[in-house]
């Protein structure tokens, strides 16, 4: 019968060693973050009460709750989505359903990669130069949300394009053979089969948008506003900037308060991501082809 030779045993041993090394690297990558999350929950958990979520900050932001920041983040995300989702879906439809493999398509892809790769503070500079000054929106929710929308556009485009391309080409061909136009095919065959994948991308974008700080610092988010925004031309507080402000700019903040804000922010973001992942797994299970 087959018996392991000296060489076999040596190879087996090397493999086990490397496997262990890589496993340890993976664990060391994930473990510190889990510990950090634990510390956040330990310090921030006791802060989070109904009162904390639904009252305004008081005593120069050293006490009270986070209501205006929460509401402000919801405003910023909602307006940004109104802009980026239609544009993003249109761009993904073009790239997946219409574009030929030519220089224009390559340029669009390069532009998308760069929109995602340009530093967030450069997006902020662009927001100041374009929306605040040139288009005269002033520092407002509108200017901040437009900046966020352009910055997070690649998230929607990439997710949508992926789910459009997951629809088998034969579906489209069958539809074209029935005499349907391109749009009819997209409307009745491609979109219904990819809508949940697109939704996953949109949820992911909500999470990205809610966490961004630098792009809104100079375009529409305020350090402290005791009232809620009434229109898109108002300034607003935001969760991410609020965390920055109370942990660096305000003296005399009780130690646990920023932990509470950080915990609420990170819970919002991770909950959105978890939702998007769960959605994707349900989808994969239900896929018909």
């Amino acid at each position, binding site marked *: 019968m087959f018996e392991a030779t000296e060489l076999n045993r040596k190879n087996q041993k090397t493999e086990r060693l490397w496997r262990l090394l890589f496993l340890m690297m993976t664990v060391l990558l994930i473990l510190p973050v889990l510990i950090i999350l634990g510390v956040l929950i330990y310090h921030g958990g006791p802060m989070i009460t109904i009162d904390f979520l639904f009252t305004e900050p008081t005593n120069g932001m050293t006490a009270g709750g986070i209501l205006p920041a929460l509401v402000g983040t919801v405003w910023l995300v909602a307006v940004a989505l109104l802009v980026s989702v239609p544009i993003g879906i*249109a761009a993904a439809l073009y790239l997946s359903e219409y574009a030929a493999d030519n220089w224009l398509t390559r340029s669009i892809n390069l532009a998308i990669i760069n929109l995602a790769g340009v530093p967030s503070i450069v997006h902020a500079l662009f927001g100041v130069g374009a929306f605040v000054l040139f288009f005269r929106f002033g520092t407002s929710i509108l200017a901040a949300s437009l900046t966020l929308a352009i910055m997070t556009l690649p998230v929607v485009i990439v997710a949508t394009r992926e789910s459009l391309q997951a629809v088998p080409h034969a579906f489209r061909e069958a539809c074209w053979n029935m005499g349907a136009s391109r749009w009819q095919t997209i409307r009745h065959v491609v979109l219904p089969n990819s809508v949940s994948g697109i939704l996953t991308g949109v949820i992911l974008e909500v999470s990205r948008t809610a966490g961004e700080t630098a792009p809104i610092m100079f375009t529409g988010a305020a350090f402290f506003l005791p009232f809620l925004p009434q229109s898109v031309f108002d300034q607003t507080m935001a969760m991410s900037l609020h965390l920055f402000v109370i942990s660096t700019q305000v003296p005399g903040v009780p130690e646990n308060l920023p932990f509470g804000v950080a915990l609420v922010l990170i819970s919002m973001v991770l909950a959105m991501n978890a939702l998007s992942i769960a959605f994707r797994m349900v989808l994969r299970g239900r896929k018909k082809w």
Partner: protein
Amino acid sequence: MGVWNFRSGTLAMSGSPQDLGAQLDRRDLAWFVDKAVQALVFLGGVSAIVFILGIFVFITKEGFGFIAGRFDIVEFFGSTRWRPTSEQPTYGALALIVGTASVTGLAMLVAVPFSLGAAIYIGEFAQGRTREVLKILVELLAAIPSVVWGFIGLSIMNPLIIRLFDVPVGLNVLNSGFILGLMAAPIMTTIAEDSLKAVPDTYREAAEALGATRWQVIRRVVIPAARNGLVAAVLLGVGRGFGETMAVLMASGHSINLPTSVFDSVRALTATIAAELGETAVGSEHYRALFTLGIFLFVVTFIINLTADLVIRGIRKK
């Protein structure tokens, strides 16, 4: 005789071509809707190019006054004196560039081996449920906002470094490099794992058929085949570190310094813009100088992204 109607794409079998052409002209509502959608969708596609050009145009517009006037290339890249608010302002960005480079460099030192190792484990060794769970964890790590990372550097890492190394200040290259490494690692892991996955299974099967162990397959076949993707993953990680703003602003100490050890505080390019833009008057020299820093950041990240894209394209060609 058949007549092919090019507009409607149908074949007419009899009658005079003109009559049939009119009858079969299917430019009805559906046709116009189709064309309108095509135009709209095209606009959406081109918008990405419009936006990236817009970014360049607008930051250049605001920064141009400085580049054309006060800007001195020797001072900008050669002097460490960034004193935009003194009586005789100087705009030397060298210390800021070195600050960004040192933080990014340390971050990559931490993140590159670990994320490539993790990518190999997740992509090649782990199986089934373990693999799914690890992938989801890595994806969630990538989602933590940068301001939260900055806060972690400020409130958890800072006291930890002071106690562990007995140094007066814990906001330094070590702190921000470590934080930035943890931030960049999940992204690099994901991209690296994607490029390992892109290596065809037939390669692995061929090597296994020759009696190679799994590690030999990975080392001799998978890694060489995925090399370009791995390089691109590292490049995109560098780009991410280079452009990170909030975490570096909060964890690096924000003092202008040429660091001699990891315990020195530094100041990054991005953090300088974030910290100073709010205090400058629109149109002032200082304001335009900050936009010039922005142009520099834009150009450098553009080059990094372009290179990464070309490297990835290199694999596709093969």
